[in-house]
């Protein structure tokens, strides 16, 4: 497949995630949008890894592995992030009984 397709698909997913972040007020949804964005990037990484693999197969049959491993690590980090992030959201909900980010304007002060 042309790499362009993956590129535009990833961009589209990423932008949708971005729009979600910008338009929603529910912290959990925003969080999920971020996950979506991460996935968009992951997809692109894998696509590129395969692209490089194809291109440089003759020189180095192992090329492109790094890209996929990066995706793996991103997933690792994302998992850790989600666990902490959700904990924070839970705590916030306990304190203000809402997950509305409009209540999280402490940065102003």
């Amino acid at each position, binding site marked *: 497949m042309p790499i362009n397709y993956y590129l535009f698909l990833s961009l589209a997913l990423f932008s949708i995630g971005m729009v979600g972040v910008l338009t929603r007020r529910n912290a959990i949804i925003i969080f999920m949008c971020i996950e979506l964005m991460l996935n968009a990037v992951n997809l692109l990484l894998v696509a590129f890894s395969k*692209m490089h693999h194809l291109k440089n197969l003759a020189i180095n049959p192992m090329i492109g592995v790094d890209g996929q491993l990066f995706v793996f690590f991103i997933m690792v*980090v994302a998992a850790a992030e989600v666990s902490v992030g959700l904990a924070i959201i839970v705590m916030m909900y306990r304190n203000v009984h809402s997950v509305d980010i409009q209540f999280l304007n402490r940065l102003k002060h």
Partner: protein
Amino acid sequence: MNITPYIFWFLSVMALFSALMMVTSRNPVYSVLWLISTFFAISGHYILLNAQFLAAVNIIVYAGAIMVLFLFVIMLMNLNRETEPQKNRWLKLIGALAGGCLLLVMVAALKDAELRSQQAMVGTGSIGLIKVLGKELFTRYVVPFEISSLLFLSAMVGAAVIGKKETPETLKS
């Protein structure tokens, strides 16, 4: 007649549609479900790209563990109603516009890029196989891999500490 493009298009449409639905659903539970659907589509892409390991991990970790976690939290908070207060319409519009602009700019920037002619290897190639990746992971990437375990540990501890109920007694101590 190669079936690959059809699968590609199908998966792409599914991913985009699910993503859109996720963003637009009022009910968080639906959002989670649509997101899971997106993840499945993306995993499909991975399989298409012969990245089997990642496809598996994506489904297990993301669609399985993480999204279930989300679901739990949402249900725990009883957020399954459509209670989310809505943002100011203008702000929404601006947000959507900004995101759209971003897409537009990036697409415009990349559409003439020279890698247009490049192809991604679809369906073949061994690098996405578990054997290859695992070998690589435990040789060259063994240190980051171990460090990631530490990350998980700290995330676990962090989540536990943050999630602990703060009572006046604990606050004092």
